[in-house]
């Protein structure tokens, strides 16, 4: 008897992911146990429009208690003139912006997570009554702070000792889809240059539809026989317009003609497929000559 739990999607999956990763790390012993080490899953939160709720799972993998505070803000990725992505945030949000930051309540907003403990944060969304059909966005800020550090003071005479506590904040995407949503991108203004050890491309992606294009931009360099000789991939989200830079390793290439194919697709290795708004992929292929 085969029972699929796919339709339960990420609620259960996020829990399994958290536990699975913890178990895998424990078995492999690949990472040292850190004093302050909180795992967060998932990293993209899609609020269920029927229940208007979502979840984030925290697991304290460290050996010390962690203080966690959660808040929300409005922002989305943009690129600068060099193609570097950054988060554009807003201190005041225009009414026309598709911000859901002010609708979000998180329970609990503050907590103390014991070593090896896990906690599910419940996200409740209270949208206004008359809401246009589209996708709405926010960013969840999960701030994690450890206990006070022990500042060495080894002298028996009064002296001065100093140290800093460190806080780490993770900023995650939150999405709320009201009604039917669509997405897509157009790809244009492709630029390419070759350096000694890589091929670097920039491409402008303009979003279509009423939802963010969350996916990845891939680049595949192929030789004249069509064999892939090098690849690159960057996860991204196109909320309005994005002009990212992507590079593929190209050291030691033989002379000859190659092609570079850039493809934007609504698939990401780090986000479960059912959470994404899917769209046809778009691509462009350029000739590359290695003299």
């Amino acid at each position: 008897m085969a029972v699929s739990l796919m339709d339960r999607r990420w609620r259960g999956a996020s829990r399994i992911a958290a536990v699975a990763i913890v178990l895998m790390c424990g078995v492999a012993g690949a990472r040292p146990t850190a004093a302050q080490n909180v795992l967060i899953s998932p990293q993209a939160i899609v609020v269920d429009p029927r229940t208007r709720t979502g979840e984030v799972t925290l697991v304290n993998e460290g050996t010390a208690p962690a203080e966690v505070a959660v808040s929300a803000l409005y922002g989305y990725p943009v690129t600068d003139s060099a193609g570097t992505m950054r988060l554009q945030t807003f201190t005041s949000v225009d009414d026309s912006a598709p911000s859901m930051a002010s609708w979000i309540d998180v329970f609990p907003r503050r907590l103390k997570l014991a070593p090896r403990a896990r906690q599910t944060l419940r996200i409740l969304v209270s949208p206004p009554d008359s809401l246009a059909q589209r996708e709405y966005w926010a960013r969840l800020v999960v701030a994690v702070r450890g206990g006070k550090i022990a500042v060495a003071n080894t002298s028996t005479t009064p002296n001065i000792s100093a140290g800093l506590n460190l806080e780490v904040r993770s900023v995650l995407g939150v999405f709320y889809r009201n009604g039917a949503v669509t997405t897509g991108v157009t790809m244009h203004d492709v630029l390419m240059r070759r350096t000694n050890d890589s091929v670097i491309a920039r491409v402008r992606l303009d979003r279509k539809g009423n939802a963010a294009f969350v996916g990845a931009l891939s680049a595949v360099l192929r030789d004249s026989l069509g064999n892939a000789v090098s690849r690159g991939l960057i996860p991204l989200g196109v909320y309005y317009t994005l002009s990212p830079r992507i590079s593929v390793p190209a050291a030691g290439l033989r002379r000859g003609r190659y092609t570079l194919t850039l493809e934007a697709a609504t698939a990401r290795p780090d986000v479960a497929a059912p959470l994404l708004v899917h769209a046809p992929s778009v691509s462009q292929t350029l000739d590359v000559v290695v003299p």
Partner: protein
Amino acid sequence: MSNSRGITLLLVAAVFAGTSLGAQNSASATVSADVQQPITVSKTNDLTFGNVFPGLSASIPVTSSSAAAFSIQGQAGANVNLTFTLPSTLSSGGNTLPVANWVARRNTTNSSASGTDFTPSSSATAAVLSGTGALYVFVGATAQPTVSQAAGTYTGTATMTVVYF
């Protein structure tokens, strides 16, 4: 390109009804679930100046074992932004101790001996996680006690923010 990693668990359940040896049933179920990539930002070391002396600056370079150290684990090749909120003074009661000359280094391997240096600030620093989804950040600074610095234990808080796209 796979959207998620699938975990398939095969559950074999043997059901025994009471003590009847003849009433033994077995069933198997294939259970699948999407596993999403979690993220982990860890503080692996605090920044400690230890004992300092009036009028003598104490610098902690990024290569020092006393430097702050962070570890980020996420999706391979993912772009992230790093921003910092750093104090200009540490406090001990009503007294303050200046801290300046913040320096940082990032590396895709867990070593501060090499990597890319940058100045930690509120302006975003772009970085890319390694092929295994790792990034390590090391932060140092200089404590600058004045000649009349009051004795005490001075502390403050530094914040690193990691944005995922």
